[in-house]
């Protein structure tokens, strides 16, 4: 069997508080190959923290420990910051939630994407421009030359998110972490953005970690699903077998979503007293 791209064992994230340290991720383990993994949970379940911990983006006083956190066999936790920086973006990159806050408002889109490339590769100016143009085309932006000269406030949310995806994919990483990539977008645009991520991930043979609170959406776009609650993985299953999920939390989450063909008078809600924490 080939070695997984990313291997995580017993990942823990803690933050100190006046009441003592609080563990927000309590021992998460998974392996990621060239596949699509979905992490689902409510706010506060630790799903975003898991994504950030992989990239070592948790700042002090937050603390990350793990038995193993390895990317292609290299231990990420002991890597010096310098090498980590070379790896971030180039090998593992992350698409953030809201393009309005994550793009630099005073830099044109073309320059921002070029910057992502320049940091990791040494290319001539014209080669860079050509790559930016190709990338914008790959994310289905019709008029790449015009868009490259625009500022983030001049484009819509969906286009902004495509720009961000372009920026994250241009150094050709092996793993893409997408943290709620579409929750700031409209339903009709959501599908387009996710289809785009899906095609790019498949074409380039990348690994994808899709973090979302939307079970159906994750089920549609992923192969494997982890369900998290209060910092722990409560269920893991193949996306196709989501309806056979057994944990009461997963079942509760599934049942609480209104269906297109709705005939229930009230939606079942989660009995929060039944679980610890949150």
């Amino acid at each position, binding site marked *: 069997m080939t070695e997984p791209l990313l291997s995580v064992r017993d990942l823990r994230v803690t933050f100190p508080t006046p009441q003592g340290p609080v563990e927000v991720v309590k021992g998460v383990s998974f392996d990621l190959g060239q596949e699509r993994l979905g992490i689902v949970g*409510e*706010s506060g379940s630790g799903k975003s923290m898991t994504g950030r911990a992989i990239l070592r983006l948790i700042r002090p006083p937050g603390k990350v420990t793990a038995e193993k956190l390895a990317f292609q066999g290299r231990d990420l936790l002991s890597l010096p910051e310098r090498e980590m920086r070379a790896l971030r973006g180039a090998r593992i990159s992350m698409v953030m939630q809201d393009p309005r806050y994550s793009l630099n408002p005073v830099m044109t889109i073309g320059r921002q994407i070029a910057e992502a490339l320049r940091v990791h590769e040494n290319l001539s100016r014209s080669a860079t421009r050509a790559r930016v143009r190709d990338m914008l085309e790959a994310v289905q932006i019709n008029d790449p030359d015009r868009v490259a000269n625009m500022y983030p406030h001049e484009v819509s*949310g969906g286009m902004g998110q495509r720009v961000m995806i372009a920026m994250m994919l241009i150094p050709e990483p092996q793993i893409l972490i997408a943290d709620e990539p579409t929750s700031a977008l*409209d*339903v*009709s*645009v*959501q*599908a387009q953005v996710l289809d785009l991520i899906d095609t790019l991930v498949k074409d380039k043979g990348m690994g994808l970690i899709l973090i979302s*609170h*939307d*079970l*159906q959406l994750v089920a*549609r776009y992923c192969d494997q699903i982890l369900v998290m609650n209060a910092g722990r993985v409560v269920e893991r299953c193949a996306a196709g077998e989501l309806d056979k999920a057994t944990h009461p939390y997963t079942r*509760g*989450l599934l049942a*609480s*979503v*209104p*269906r*297109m*063909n*709705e005939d*229930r*008078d*009230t*939606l*079942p*809600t*989660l009995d929060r007293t039944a679980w610890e924490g949150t």
Partner: protein
Amino acid sequence: MTAAISLNNLDISYSGTRVVEGVTFDVAEGESFALVGESGSGKSTVLKAIAGLAPEWSGEMSILGQPRGHGPDKDLARTCQMVFQDPYGSLHPRKTVDAVLSEPLAIHGLGNRSERIEKALRDVGLDRRFRFRYPHQMSGGQRQRVAIARALMLEPKIMLLDEPTSALDVSVQAEILNLLKRLRAEQNLTYLLVSHDLPVVGFMCDRVAVMTKGRIVEIAPVDALHHGDFTDPYSRQLYAASGG
């Protein structure tokens, strides 16, 4: 019977640019009506015009048989209240729940404030201890409950709901939707709900109007969502994008 909300050929503009054109529909008393569409389709603008937040409109608008004027209308506030999308943005950060809920009572000169506030909190399923909290001491779901309580303070007949759950987690969304549904049954409210989430509309509403580019392209009963039998091509596209 007079319609709770009656719009006839309504055009709405923002500083000269027309964003909504020729919107016509009636919402019966006690009905739950939905406006769906993408962002920018003008669905929220229709709600804003009814609430008086988008005064640049022409056409006819009447609420419970009373024609609506262009200025602020204190009597309208008694019958028609709005709940906004983002509970993180719609509550004053430096006012306690108590202050937020007493304000409409003070403006309309209503007495028995303490009892009314306690009743409103009970109605939306919040414990008494929330009464003197600030918004930052509550979760998103609890804040949205406060926003709903605020709208209910004047015992309105009509509630304008602008994406009331889209800023919330699915599990919290279920709680708020159940709450809204129960309140409607208990207090015989009329709902005009704006949403981009078709399953939510299917759960909450009786009829649905599909909007795109400032126009209504189709008004259908909610059964259309169950079976997917929309006639307009845009509605079908929207239905397909929502996983129907």
